[in-house]
């Protein structure tokens, strides 16, 4: 599958995105297309605008200028929730789950959105089969099958990170934005996480922010480098690794 195989346009792209916070330009006319079925990694030093770009793509941040499109449709004016309903999911850099719910209830909640257009108010949520099945399958998939009944807030950081990703993954979103999915994951937990992420990234349109360069080079089909709010370069992982400018700006010349 090539990017050109999409008559309507790539599942997600942005054009001329500019974001200013007061006098500070966080993003300066960034244009990127995220081809179908590919994983695009956003890399760059801290403050380069990676998370801001993810916020613009997911609808959390309105750009000062520029457009965001999903499969050719202009979604710039839509908030996060309607974009989610169009098939865009994201995970957060700082773990953002529902701590009072059990792990199972977290995932069932996410599943509910894919099962009902209007949330029923007069029947027990436990009585519906499809949300339960989706949640149970996701529990298994993120490796928390034995922890479903535990309060999510009581789990370890790595386990909460798994819930974080599970919430985004329920319902099989067309486009997945992952903001540092390995942040805070202990070195012993990285291997199963990489396996999970590898399974996700292989078949989906993914935008990935990650500081772990081994993970980026292993998971990404394409890499886009942001520095100071500008798109410095983009290409395959090998091209980016070989790019002298990128090495100077980010990877360190000794890399």
């Amino acid at each position, binding site marked *: 599958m090539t990017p050109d195989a999409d008559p309507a346009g790539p599942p997600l792209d942005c054009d001329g995105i500019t974001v200013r916070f007061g006098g500070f330009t966080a993003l300066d006319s960034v244009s990127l297309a995220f081809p179908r079925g590919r994983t695009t990694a956003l890399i760059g030093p801290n403050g380069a605008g990676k998370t801001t770009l993810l916020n613009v793509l997911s609808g959390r941040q309105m750009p000062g200028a520029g457009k965001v499109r999903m499969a050719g449709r202009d979604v710039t004016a839509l908030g*996060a*929730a*309607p974009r989610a309903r169009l098939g865009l999911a994201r995970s957060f850099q700082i773990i953002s789950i*529902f701590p009072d719910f059990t792990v199972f209830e977290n995932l069932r909640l996410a599943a509910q*959105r894919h099962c009902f257009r209007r949330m029923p108010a007069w029947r027990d949520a436990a009585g*519906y089969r499809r949300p339960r099945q989706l949640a149970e399958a996701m529990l298994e998939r993120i490796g928390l099958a034995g922890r479903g009944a535990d309060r999510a807030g009581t789990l370890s950081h790595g386990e909460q990170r798994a819930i974080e990703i599970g919430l985004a993954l329920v319902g099989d979103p067309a486009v997945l934005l992952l903001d540092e999915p390995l942040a805070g994951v202990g070195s012993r937990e990285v291997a199963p996480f990489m396996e999970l992420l590898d399974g996700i990234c292989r078949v989906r349109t993914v935008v990935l922010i990650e500081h772990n360069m081994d993970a980026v080079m292993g998971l990404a089909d394409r890499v886009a480098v942001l520095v100071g709010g500008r798109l410095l370069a983009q290409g395959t992982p090998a091209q980016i690794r070989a790019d002298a400018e990128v090495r100077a700006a980010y990877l360190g010349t000794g890399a």
Partner: protein
Amino acid sequence: MSGLARQLAAILAGGAALLALALGVTDEPLLYFASLVLIWAIFAIGFDLVFGLTGLLSFGHAAFFGVGAYVQALLTLDMGWAFAPAFGAALLAGAGLAALFGMFAIRMSGVYLALTTLALAQLVNILVEVKLRGLTGGSDGLIGVPRPEAFGLDFYDSGIYLAFLAILFTIALAAAAILRRSPFGQVLQAIRQNEVRADQLGFDVRGSKIAVFAVSGLFAAAAGALMGGLTSFVGPDMTGWKVSGDVLIMTILGGRGTLLGPVLGVLAFELLRDVASAWTDHWYGILGIVFIAFTLFLPEGLMGGMRTLRRAWRTAGRGRPATGGDAP
């Protein structure tokens, strides 16, 4: 049996016990006290859907309570409507007004939300007391609000009216129990815990908030209409900020975010009022001290205290010495 089915069975059993109390007791003060508690409990159960379940601090619920009372009174007294259709209209009026409050409320949170709802409720209060005096009787209120007439029963008998209240209270409690556990209720709890994530998952956060305000307003209006029937009087104080404060204090005393907490809180509040107001006019001062003590030592209210006790009991039962729970 599922958790909800067990809960509903317990609610039904409780309702039957209340019914037996209503029809078995002849002590007038006790019947009046029980009626007051059930009416306020319906109010507090509804209030907690917004406050405890969804996490929105409303300080304007008196408006819905009062509007329910006035719509009921005006339709029966001035328009000659029967109790039941007037009650239906009162519920709709409360839900509609609450939805309107909700539309303002979705734009803010925390103390700003509390102040905005307070300001809106004060507007209603002024309307009722001053601007619509011709309709509402101003500060004199409306006297002689009728009770239902149905099934050949005498609803002016305190026991019969309490039995009627017990049935409505049971329905309200069961409805709240179902709503809390429903997919919609799950979304409301999700909004309380993490609004940003609920939004990012694609849930309609604003629509859900407006909807829960409407449902909550319906409960409040029902309580207001029933209060008018109990005292046969409706006055502007029913839309005043003190009513909003009372229901908030009741809910916190009992334990916000739990099904039975608001009910327990109402009972504790009314007991305190009954006992303390017998020997001082300044019983609100005593309430204040109790309230401060609760926020310091029992922030999760009576329900939280009971949970702590139960945990300590279980720990003790396992052969380890009880440590006395979390509270000092």
